[in-house]
């Protein structure tokens, strides 16, 4: 019963955060909404015995990704309010259709046996401690793990490159105006 109560509370918070994220006019509030959702995700992970993942979730998403978002929001300014009038033809209709389709899919999937059939988590105990996860990570999935290393390195190099060589135009106009 406790679990149900916790789930409902967390789910409510997560959904609120998500809705705030999508609807907020100001991107900072969007970021805060997403942050809330991510925290509740971490709580869900704890409920699902994935302790390591929970901490990593906070560390990576809340600690790094959202900080970066905030930083960029502050850097490029958020003064301009978004114009809500739709300019793309068919976009609104398409969104409605897609939304309806998504709802249909969710309902249909929700009626599948693997969703409704199971009564509780009765499967073998799985504790997502660092040891368990790293055993899998450095045992079976070593190559994938190393690929992520490359991915991150490439991302870092790419970011630096974008930051360094991103503004040729501005420099040119200035040097032309100078004399």
């Amino acid at each position, binding site marked *: 019963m406790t679990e149900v109560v916790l789930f409902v509370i967390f789910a409510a918070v997560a959904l609120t955060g998500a809705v705030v994220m999508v609807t907020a006019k100001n991107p900072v509030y969007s970021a805060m909404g997403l942050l809330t959702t991510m925290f509740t995700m971490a709580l869900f992970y704890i409920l699902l015995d994935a302790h390591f993942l929970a901490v990593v979730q906070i560390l990576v998403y809340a600690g790094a990704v959202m*900080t970066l978002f*905030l*930083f960029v929001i502050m850097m490029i300014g958020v003064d301009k309010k978004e114009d809500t009038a739709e300019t793309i033809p068919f976009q609104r209709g398409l969104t409605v259709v897609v939304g309806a389709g998504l709802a249909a899919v969710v309902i249909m999937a929700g009626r599948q046996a693997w969703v409704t059939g199971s009564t509780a988590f009765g499967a073998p105990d799985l504790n997502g401690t660092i040891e368990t996860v790293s055993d899998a990570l450095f045992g079976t999935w070593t190559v994938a793990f190393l690929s992520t290393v490359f991915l991150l390195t490439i991302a870092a190099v790419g970011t630096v490159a974008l930051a360094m060589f991103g503004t040729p135009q501005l420099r040119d106009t200035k040097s032309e105006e100078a004399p």
Partner: protein
Amino acid sequence: MEDFIVAAVKTVIAFALLFTVVLLLVWIERRIVAFMQNRLGPTRAGPLGILQTLADGMKLLFKESMTPDRVEVWLYLAAPIMALVPAVLIFLVVPIGAPITIGGTEYTLQVTDLNVGVLYVLAMSSMAVYAIALAGWSSGSKYPLLGSVRSAAQMISYEAAMGLALVPVIMFNGTTSLAGIVEAQGATYFGFLPAWNIVLLPSFVVFVIAMFAETNRAPFDLVEAEQEIVGGFHTEYSGFRFALFFLAEYINLFNMSALTVVFFLGGWQGPVFGPTVLQWILPVIYFFAKTFAIVFLFIWVRGTLPRMRYDQLMGFGWKRLIPVSLAWIILAMIAVGIRRFGLPWA
């Protein structure tokens, strides 16, 4: 149910302890810095001025908390709380003494022992950025914004170095639980040298330096460099909201000192003797003695070093600390590997 009561009692004690310690800490800092500058510092409130912080707190509590015009109200109000909460949460996993046994039940002197304690600590300390960033942004004023942008960049940079500095510790002790790390440091070398993690000297140095930056203390206190950006992120805060920031800063200072002790200086380890009660108390005393030694280091550095320039700060973080940490991780990895699996040709 009993667990719940124990946890609640522990939490209450932890909070009380934390706030008491912070009150003391502010006083200690003011006194020591004063001494270093040939002054006396606060002497009026209470014996030797020990209640000065309390008095200041009362004053701030009763002052009017002004809300300037152009602030984003919700975030402006939330920021001080967001500063305080992670600071307090970190302390929950710090073991302040050896486990004590009363009536057959063992009680650990820490609110909770997470098996991912180190990561938890890192995660929580990275949360501190939000308070500062949001406070600065929501103030709607340029100095706070500058201060908060500086702080966001600074904290992200030094967090990386800090996390890397802890990797050798984890490898060396083979656990990420703080209690486990302290336990692992209970051994001795040659029978008398305590096996503290301070043997991982580069890690220790990097951690301490990153710690200064994470807590926004001198010489990395660019976030609130008065000469350039007035008060930094808390320029527009007054009254009790300002007090919360202040409190969070000092709680962080204490937490970081405590964590240094836990990670590198053996936690509550030390020679224990005498009757049972003394055996309970001595570790706590050791822990606080070591922690306050680190606190003294903080204050000493603040009293001695001038503030760094911003580019120096970032350059130092990215071009010195992180490469050094990475190189040291590799060395430590080899050392740990040899210790665990023997020499490669043996």
